[in-house]
């Protein structure tokens, strides 16, 4: 593992009930870079992210973060490692019984002994960084989808993590929120000097901001490269995915047996 690599996946395999989900994944996430993992829904992207967060352990291979193999850490060691990570969940996962302020302050209160005045100042700074200064007294139910995502982002970066993971950060956002969140992800990555990993199937928005892309299909990497490489790729899966084409290796129809026979039609 190079000193410039923060996260390393080597021959990561994972299966649920003997059903393989990840098949020999090798990935490197260099420090300070913003890397996307793309693929269709159900291809194993989020499972990869959960391995990097130490929520799941590989059945074979390893995930190394900041020089430490995650599945070899005990509970306290894993928690210590997670304090250096932040994760933005698909729909924010804000604590619905807490105000925006308490959500952003949550980790500061749990992991530090900072006085409340300092926590307050830090919360205001984080909210300002995501453009939501003034919303601190609102409850999550009072926020729009885009605002909730940004509050969750402020909570994610509360303790300036070295690694930020984003699980489908663009899902369900309107075009303006999409651009705002996309720009924020890039700006925060550069400002914090963090390493970011985005799991997404939003090609257009993510290719604008990422440094490198891994394409995953059926639990394996089928293509990788910079945004320019991906756009120029002649690989049929990547072409179909990036350009949203109907025809290609990804079939429209589910494998559902013999349709004509089912309707008692002659071939």
């Amino acid at each position, binding site marked *: 593992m190079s000193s410039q690599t923060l996260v390393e996946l080597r021959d990561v395999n994972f299966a649920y009930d003997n059903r393989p989900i990840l098949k020999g994944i090798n990935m490197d996430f260099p420090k300070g870079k913003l890397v996307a993992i793309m693929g269709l829904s159900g291809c194993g992207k989020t499972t990869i992210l959960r391995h990097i967060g130490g929520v799941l352990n590989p059945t074979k291979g390893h995930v190394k973060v900041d020089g430490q193999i995650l599945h070899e850490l005990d509970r306290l060691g894993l928690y210590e490692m*997670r304090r250096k990570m932040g994760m933005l969940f698909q729909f924010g996962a804000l604590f619905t019984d807490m105000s925006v302020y308490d959500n952003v302050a949550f980790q500061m209160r*749990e992991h530090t002994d900072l006085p409340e005045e300092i926590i307050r100042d830090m919360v205001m700074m984080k909210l300002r960084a995501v453009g939501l200064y003034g919303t601190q007294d609102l409850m999550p139910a009072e926020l729009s989808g885009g605002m909730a995502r940004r509050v969750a982002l402020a909570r994610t970066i509360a303790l300036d993590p070295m690694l930020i993971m984003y699980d489908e950060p663009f899902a369900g956002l309107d075009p303006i929120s999409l651009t705002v969140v996309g720009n924020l992800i890039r700006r925060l990555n550069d400002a914090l000097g963090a390493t970011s990993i985005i799991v997404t199937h939003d090609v257009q928005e993510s290719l604008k901001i990422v440094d490198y892309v891994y394409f995953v299909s059926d639990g394996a990497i089928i293509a990788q490269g910079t945004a320019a490489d991906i756009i120029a790729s002649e690989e049929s899966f990547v072409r179909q995915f990036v350009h949203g084409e109907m025809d290609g290796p990804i079939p429209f129809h589910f494998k559902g047996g013999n349709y004509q026979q089912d309707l008692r039609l002659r071939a």
Partner: protein
Amino acid sequence: MKRIIAGVRKLGNHTINLVWRIGMATHFFVLTLRFSGTSFARFRLTIRELFFSGVMSLIIILVAGLFVGIVLGLQGYETLKRYGSESALGTLVALSLVRELGPVLSALLFASRAGSAMTAEIGLMKATEQIDAMEIMAVNPIARVVAPRFWAGVISMPLLAALFSAMGVFGGYMVGVVMIGVDAGSFWSQMQASVDFEHDIMNGVIKSFVFGVAVTAIALFEGYDAPPTAEGVSGATTRTVVQSSLAVLLLDVILTAIMFRGE
């Protein structure tokens, strides 16, 4: 033959699932006890849950206690009058409430009011990834979410049972003494003479404590184990009410057999 094999297989599958779930529930309960330190070190977390499970259940407990006391007063008077023992009405009302009805009925009401709310809340927290978010933020959800609710349930249950019994005695007094005209002096003095602190009141408190542990543990496990879907959470909520009600009644049989063996 195929049907028999399928039936046996289904039964075996069901049994394995049941044993598996009991094992998971036991493990969850042990973890809850193990990570209970936060609930006491940061007692305001537990106080917040005491408000939601205890204080918010007060109305239903007090009203139900009053109604049960009124019914006990009316039914008890009718029966005691046949034997010319109306003056023992206070004893009948108090012993029925303190030994049995207070702990059992308040536990059943607690299961449907606070237990179901705990299951739904934790189930929804899981469905909306709030539990996962906490785990990723290096905050143990069992210590932060589950244990304070558990101890709040365990603390509030005996208090609610005591209030239920007190309201029931008041209801019995209103019917027996104020409305029917049983002598107030004999109502209270017979009650005072026949209700033993250790044998009656403490056994009632122990019962309600055990019921509190059972109801809260079932509610929290069902919420934590609920599939993260609308059907999953609604099924878990139903299971909480059914299982904890049956557990309360079964435990009551066992505890009563141990505590009051007719000695």
